[in-house]
């Protein structure tokens, strides 16, 4: 058996069904072995597409995503996507080809030190020197990727290792003496947290991506309902509680709802679950965030606790297990007056948009209504992403796929590919912008090749909207390099790939176009022509406290 065959066997044993990849010279043995494997391979058009697709596959399915790229430029093209997965704690195994071990370190053709390059953006990495180690390394890589705080692991595979004939491989047994995973929280701390909750009068639960990673949505709902807790979420926490849940105040932070930001500012107890107090939430002001509150911080990564904000009650553990413990000891606090205040804020500062004609917020709401609660929506990065976070109704975890921490323009289209491959029977909508979309537009060919019935909603305003908004508000409308003057005709572009294209310029056309897109069996690109003057509000200006929002 060759190293390549052994690798594929080990991947199968880890339950891998699909690899997103792109071949290259050093990977020939592996691509040859793939022909005889039952693992599906999705051929992307750029390695960045492979890693984003694998990332989104993981987000949607909850399984470890796998991508594959050749040595040198193939491997370096993965870097952005690996960083993206690392920032959002997504379980991913990136396989890279490498030059033969004898040539390592000699600057040989298509050589790049990819384990060195990715060291700060991976949980761990391996450079395989002997194919006999592959079963153990693959097992460890998947275990590290999915356990604890999930993240990307890279396995670098020299050509000769893939070609190596292996008679007696090592056993696939974990050998990770120094790797610890915290799961159950300290019961004393949980009891302490329950006591603090019972005594609080103005509690808020602040939920993030850790809730979704832990599969804690049901126990979260139970805790929230039993204690009448108001909930704010991060961008990554969207879907942890259904959008229409009465206890949900919305997203918190720079483009959060006014009520969510006021609530965090005024609360006397902040229960932070699976969050990392990102500066897009706290405005980077650390100790001017939730200043009146006692802070309970629940996180599986001990290093997150105390990194940004001192927690009064730190609990290291899996969000689901800790919340189950909390539920068992929960005594509902008296929150009547607090809810009156919150409802008043909601009435005074509703999330709303006003514009004549076709507005992106309205389009996004209509997509939500027509796509239905089972649809998966992927976004790119920019204004459309914030509008989607604010207006798209998300009913379940793992149904809102977005690049949170890294904010990677170009994530959207390959992410939609990964989502559709993970859930072939679901409606997958991509909400993108004309800037982001063009960063990975080549993946339209992947959509076409695999006949993925993705519905692409392009919020096309001809500008880099979020940067334009900053230039408008903070640089006296001195617009610099944000005009995308030579945008292609996106309809004709879609058609060039054999993808149906629909242009929507009037409000009256929106619903009909969306119905037509849903009725079409294949992929569709909807080009929504919107005004560049549409901005994202509310907005906390940089350096301001989260209560000082523009557009209240």
């Amino acid at each position, binding site marked *: 058996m060759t190293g390549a065959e052994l690798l594929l066997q080990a991947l199968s044993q880890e339950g891998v069904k699909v690899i997103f990849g792109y071949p290259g010279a050093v990977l020939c043995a592996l691509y040859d072995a793939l022909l005889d494997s039952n693992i599906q391979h999705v051929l992307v058009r750029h390695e960045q597409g492979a890693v984003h697709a694998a990332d989104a596959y993981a987000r949607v399915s909850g399984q470890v995503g796998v991508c594959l790229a050749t040595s040198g430029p193939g491997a370096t093209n993965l870097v952005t996507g690996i960083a993206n997965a690392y920032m959002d704690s997504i379980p991913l195994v990136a396989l890279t080809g490498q030059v033969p071990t004898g040539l390592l370190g000699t600057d040989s053709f298509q050589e790049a030190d990819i*384990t060195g390059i990715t*060291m*700060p953006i991976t949980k761990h990495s391996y*450079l395989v020197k002997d194919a006999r180690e592959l079963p153990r390394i693959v097992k460890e890589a998947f275990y590290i990727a999915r356990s604890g705080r999930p993240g990307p692991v890279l396995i670098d595979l020299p050509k000769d290792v893939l070609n190596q004939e292996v008679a007696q491989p090592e056993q696939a047994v974990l050998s990770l003496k120094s790797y*610890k995973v915290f799961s159950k929280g300290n019961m004393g701390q949980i009891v302490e947290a329950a006591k603090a909750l019972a005594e609080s009068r103005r509690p808020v639960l602040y939920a993030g991506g850790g809730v979704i990673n832990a599969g804690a949505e049901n126990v979260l709902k139970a805790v929230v309902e039993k204690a009448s807790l108001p909930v704010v979420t991060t961008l990554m926490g969207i879907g942890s509680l259904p959008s229409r849940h009465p206890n949900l105040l919305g997203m918190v932070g720079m483009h959060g709802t006014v009520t969510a930001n006021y609530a965090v500012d005024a609360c006397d107890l902040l229960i932070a679950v699976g969050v990392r107090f990102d500066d897009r939430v706290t405005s980077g002001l650390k100790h001017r965030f939730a200043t009146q509150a006692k802070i309970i911080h629940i996180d599986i990564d*001990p*290093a997150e606790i*105390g990194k940004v904000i001192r927690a009064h009650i730190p609990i290291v553990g899996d969000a689901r297990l800790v919340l189950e413990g909390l539920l068992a000891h929960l005594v509902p606090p008296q929150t009547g007056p607090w809810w009156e205040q919150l409802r008043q804020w909601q009435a005074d500062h509703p999330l709303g948009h006003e514009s004549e004609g076709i507005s992106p917020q309205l389009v996004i709401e209509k997509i939500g209504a027509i796509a239905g609660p089972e649809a998966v929506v992927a976004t790119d990065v920019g204004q459309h992403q914030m509008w989607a976070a604010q207006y798209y109704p998300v009913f379940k975890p793992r149904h809102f796929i977005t690049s949170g921490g890294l904010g990677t323009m170009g994530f959207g289209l390959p992410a939609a590919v990964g989502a559709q491959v993970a859930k072939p029977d679901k409606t997958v909508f991509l909400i993108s912008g004309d800037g982001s979309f063009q960063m990975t537009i080549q993946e339209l060919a992947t959509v076409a090749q695999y006949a993925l019935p993705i519905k692409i909603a392009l919020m096309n305003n001809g500008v880099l909207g979020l940067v334009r908004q900053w230039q408008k508000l903070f640089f006296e409308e001195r617009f610099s390099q944000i005009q995308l003057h030579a945008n292609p005709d996106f309809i004709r572009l879609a058609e060039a790939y054999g993808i149906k294209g629909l242009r929507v310029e009037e409000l009256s056309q929106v619903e009909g176009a969306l119905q037509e897109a849903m009725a079409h069996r294949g992929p569709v690109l909807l080009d929504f022509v919107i005004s560049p003057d549409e901005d994202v509000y509310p907005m906390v200006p940089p350096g301001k406290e989260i209560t000082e929002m523009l557009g209240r």
Partner: protein
Amino acid sequence: MLHTLAVLVENHPGVLTRVAGLFARRAYNIESLSVCQTENPAISRMTIVVAGDDQVIEQVSKQLHKLVVVHKVTDLTGQAIVDRELALIRVRVNAETRLEVLQTVDVFRGRVVDMGRTNITVELTGDGEKIDAFVRTIRNYGLLELVRTGKIAITRSDS
């Protein structure tokens, strides 16, 4: 404040890069670092001296723990420890100063490991302050070259 961390890591290629890279990207400053294999050949011990307040040191320690190659991190600061550095120091001498320099070396319990016509080389072990004091004293005679290891430290026995 300076903290001394004892970090047990796997004895593999690339481990030093992982640890040093972590310090660099999180903007923690390494004052000194020494690393060597331990009594168990699979494990290396790093003694890292790092500057920072308690919160910084807590983060350093937690972030180190997250590296798969790190087994154990102990903050030796404030504990009963024996710590040593080794220095090799070349000092200028002439007929007049030779005796004074040799006496100074004696006072600091140093050893002369090489002697030339115009200079001598001294080996000195001790804690950092002792070596600093020796260097200050000898500087008047003409300090030609100084090589100094990072700190190594071990906890004292319970008795």
